[in-house]
């Protein structure tokens, strides 16, 4: 076999320009695959982190039925059992209690229906990044029970600025009318319309007092170590927490449309990757076919001398393997370096930041690729380069020696 490997290897140097074009096609193709995958991975991961991090959290625990029909009557009591389960679940890093209710907010200039959120100013910072989105004023502190944060668009609609008073009205858990005035302490701007237009935040204590909840909460928002741990943590919590009384929902269940978007994005990306792979495969096929055509006479001589068809197939496939190996190595290296470079420095897409923010994407995308992704794509490209060469290899092995020798 060594002579056939030698022939295959030396054939690469026989037509340097052709080999270089093939190697470049494989390298650029694989590099694009790795970079594109890294870009989409990075963007989607940032999007999922932003989406869950902003307010939703990774997992929410409610009284059963709360997610479908949000009301103060479905508040959680007996929190210690749930908290104990959370503390004993290794993936659940932090959690925070919240009150959630629909309410009416009004100012002297107008009124609007909103989602009222009561948060613990200290622990909320562990599960969400909403405190980072206060662009005027400041986030609530412990004891700020007479203060409120409102969305930027809501602030504009109500013409309520920092220091102005607004009134919140709702129905308390005992059926009485809940109403209280709060001073605007901060304006939240996220880029997400439903938050900027329809969210107001007060302290957990203030919300419990307003809605007469007697220490009860609407939900416990949980953040796991990373998004990858969400499924495992959900499974454990569902097993530990009585599902007849409570509901444990992860972000995919809370916002299936966002999760489906990410899945669609992954499928679409794979489709693009498949097209890139097809282009690479066609390039390799074309080059190897040309190489076989160019050496028809030589293959004819080899067959006439008694070379077995299998040995011809091996020679052509080995040549393709070497081209694929060099191309794969350089492509994987280039792709990895690109992902590492842009992963550290980011790709600035701030020219379309409005559109990106609406979809929870960041203006700066940091590509991320795992070694497994890189290894899988490299293996696929290498396999394709060998597999695709079987067509010209079989063509070469089936040549009639006489006709091949006559070939000019």
């Amino acid at each position: 076999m060594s002579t056939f490997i030698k022939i295959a290897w030396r054939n690469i140097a026989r037509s340097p320009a052709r080999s270089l074009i093939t190697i470049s096609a494989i390298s650029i193709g694989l590099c694009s695959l790795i970079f594109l995958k890294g870009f989409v991975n990075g963007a989607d991961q940032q999007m999922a982190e932003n989406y869950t991090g902003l307010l939703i959290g990774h997992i929410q625990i409610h009284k059963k039925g709360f997610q479908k029909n949000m009301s103060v009557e479905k508040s959680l009591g007996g929190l210690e059992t749930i908290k104990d389960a959370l503390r004993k679940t290794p993936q659940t890093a932090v959690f925070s209690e919240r009150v959630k209710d629909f309410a009416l907010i009004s100012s002297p200039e107008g009124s609007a229906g909103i989602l009222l959120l009561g948060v613990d100013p200290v622990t909320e910072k562990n599960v969400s990044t909403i405190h980072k989105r206060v662009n005027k004023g400041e986030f609530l502190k412990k004891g700020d029970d007479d203060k409120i944060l409102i969305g930027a668009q809501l602030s504009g609609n109500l013409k309520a600025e920092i220091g102005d008073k607004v009134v919140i009205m709702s129905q308390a858990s005992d059926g009485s009318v809940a109403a209280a005035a709060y001073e605007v302490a901060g304006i939240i701007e996220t880029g997400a319309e439903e938050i900027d237009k329809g969210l107001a935040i007060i302290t957990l204590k203030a919300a419990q007092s307003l809605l007469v909840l007697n220490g009860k909460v609407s939900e416990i928002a949980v953040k796991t170590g990373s998004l990858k741990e969400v499924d495992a943590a959900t499974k454990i919590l569902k097993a530990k927490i009585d599902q007849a009384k409570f509901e444990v929902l992860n972000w995919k269940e809370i916002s299936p449309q966002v999760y489906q978007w990410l899945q669609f994005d992954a499928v679409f990306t794979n489709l693009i990757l498949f097209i890139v792979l097809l282009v690479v495969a066609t390039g390799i096929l074309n080059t190897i076919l040309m190489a076989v055509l160019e050496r028809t006479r030589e293959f004819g001589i080899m067959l006439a001398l008694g070379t077995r068809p299998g040995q011809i197939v091996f020679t052509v496939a080995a040549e393709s393997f070497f081209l694929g190996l060099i191309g794969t190595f350089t492509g994987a290296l280039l792709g990895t370096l690109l992902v590492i470079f842009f992963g550290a420095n980011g790709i600035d897409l701030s020219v379309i930041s409005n559109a990106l923010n609406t979809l929870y994407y960041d203006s700066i995308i940091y590509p991320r690729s795992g070694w497994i992704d890189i290894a899988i794509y490299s293996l696929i490209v290498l396999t394709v380069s060998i597999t695709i060469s079987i067509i010209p290899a079989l063509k070469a092995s089936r040549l009639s020696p006489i006709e091949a020798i006559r070939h000019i």
Partner: protein
Amino acid sequence: MSSIINIQRLSKTYTEKGSNIRSTALDDITLAIESGDFVAIAGPSGSGKTTLLNIIGALDTPTSGEVVVDGTLLSSLNSARLAEFRLKKIGFVFQAYNLVTTLTAIENTEYVALLQGISNKRRQHEAYQILKDLGLENCVNRRPGELSGGQQQRVAIARAILAQPKLVLADEPTANLDSRTGSDLIDLMKTMGSTLGITFIFATHDKMVMDKAKTLIQLHDGKIIA
């Protein structure tokens, strides 16, 4: 002496692709060639020399008739057996040198021996020895592109005879060489044929080759005329 080749009523006709036009390349040839002979098959272009050589060399099949080479009836072999037969019994020297361009002179010389499974050490030693005998000891590591036409043809001869076949078929081996080089080459093959007991058959229209042949077979329009 026994016959190494026995041909009975051999005919070969070709039908042009896409039409029913038939042309006769060989017409009812009966022929016997003695073992160890040095034979020139002569004739003008289109007389059937190469076709006859290809059929004897198991590269082509007859339309009718029987060809027996070294006791083997070629029509009884399938394509895989024919390839094996070529590998073990026949050496080829083609008109346009036809070496594997990516292999060096010594690697080209070893090629057939390699296919026959001869050990690495033995075939390297014998390849070097034969190249040395052919005056190519300084060219062993050169590739075909770095050799002259005469040197390439000598490497092709070395490749053909290294595995000591029963029969060497050479199609116009001197066609691309100057007369002096061609004459030296034929003398070389003649010497090797008699030394090693190999039967040489040439297809040629070179008068010098015909003059040096022990047996001359003349073809015209697919028939033996002398």
